[in-house]
């Protein structure tokens, strides 16, 4: 399972708010730091396990299930899809 940002979705830095923001056709999401770290790896090439591993270097005790949960929520919001 390799997640990727859906077409037309962009993760960028908003210098006005000093926040990472996710821009997509219907609106704007402000992902929390964990979600941001995950989104940065949603390139359609990196697997959930690889994302979990990469995140464990940043955060303690990251489980693959947590990553899947975050991605599922993002998929429900129509910003992430699986490839």
């Amino acid at each position, binding site marked *: 399972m390799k997640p990727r940002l*859906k077409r037309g979705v*962009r993760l960028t830095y*908003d210098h006005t*708010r000093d926040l990472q923001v996710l*821009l997509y*056709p*219907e609106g*704007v999401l402000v992902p929390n730091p964990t979600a941001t770290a995950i989104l940065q790896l949603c390139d359609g090439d990196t697997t959930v396990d690889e994302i979990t591993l990469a995140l464990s270097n940043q955060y303690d005790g990251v489980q693959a299930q947590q990553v899947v949960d975050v991605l599922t929520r993002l998929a429900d919001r129509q910003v992430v899809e699986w490839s």
Partner: protein
Amino acid sequence: MTEAPLGLTAELTHRCPLHCPYCSNPLELLQRDQELTTQQWKEILTQARELGVLQVHFSGGEPLGRPDLPELIEHTADLGAYVNLVTSGLGLTEQRLNTLVDKGLAHIQLSVQAADAERANKIAGTRAHHHKLVAAELIKRTGLPLSVNVVLHRANHDQLEGIIALAEQMGADRLELANTQYYGWALRNRDQLMPTKEQLAAAQPVVRAAIDRLKGRMQVIYVVADYYEEYPKPCMYGWGARQLTIAPDGTVLPCPAASAIETLNLDNATTKSLQEIWYGSESFNAYRGEDWMSDTCRSCDRRGIDFGGCRCQAFLLTGDGAATDPVCRKSPDRELVDLILRTPVKPAEFKPAEFEMRR
């Protein structure tokens, strides 16, 4: 506390080659010589980005009618905002489209009037349908995400299944089926546009089936006909909370329909900064928070959900912009809406002679 805005709708022009009788544009359409210049728009877009706007929707009228659209898109994309184009598709050639994409366009919302050319052209008041089929194909070729927007009313509700099939054929990533909202020309034609109860009931299973069947391929969104509901639609995320609209002449509006509220003292972006208007103006502060609300709303649990409903609708139906949206069953004015719904309807067939087509 007032937060920074997220989205700006830039109505570049009111000019449009179509004449949709459901058009939400105001009856008094602005003329070309009243439109802002390229330079004025650029300055406004820069201010908007500084204010916090992250999403810019170029709309109108027909935004493709402005020759400076590529320049404005480039300017907006360079500022770091997400650029969306809301268009009828008329005037979208392959070359034009490629230029817009090169300049940073991220998403297109293409409107469609009906399922087939005959009906669609009648509603549009011109031969528009085939242009849309071509436009959709061109958009798909660029790889840009495509949303198809359809305004539903009595004269096309019977084609709902065909409309969904058409959007699929077009390869839409998203289909927005929105029942007509009664502002501008749509309000003028309300009696002819109002769907019947039967049409709305028939739409429900069709929409539900489409949502299920197309899951993961095409997102289907259905906006209900609020006159038939018990509670009003939410006023965006609250008045002056997240969005602003700028009319072709620079008038700054809390919502695209707000020019209807005659009691509102509107400002113009050419004479005041957007910052001052967003945070300090009478119009943007008029219905912020809850202080302005009637007792009916202020004591209601749903006020955090719908913010008392639509201010424009409240004004248009009751003459008071601060009234509870008369669509709400708790509103003392609900009878106004019920009366409209009791008006006997003519058959669903579209007869242009019965409509006042938009100019």
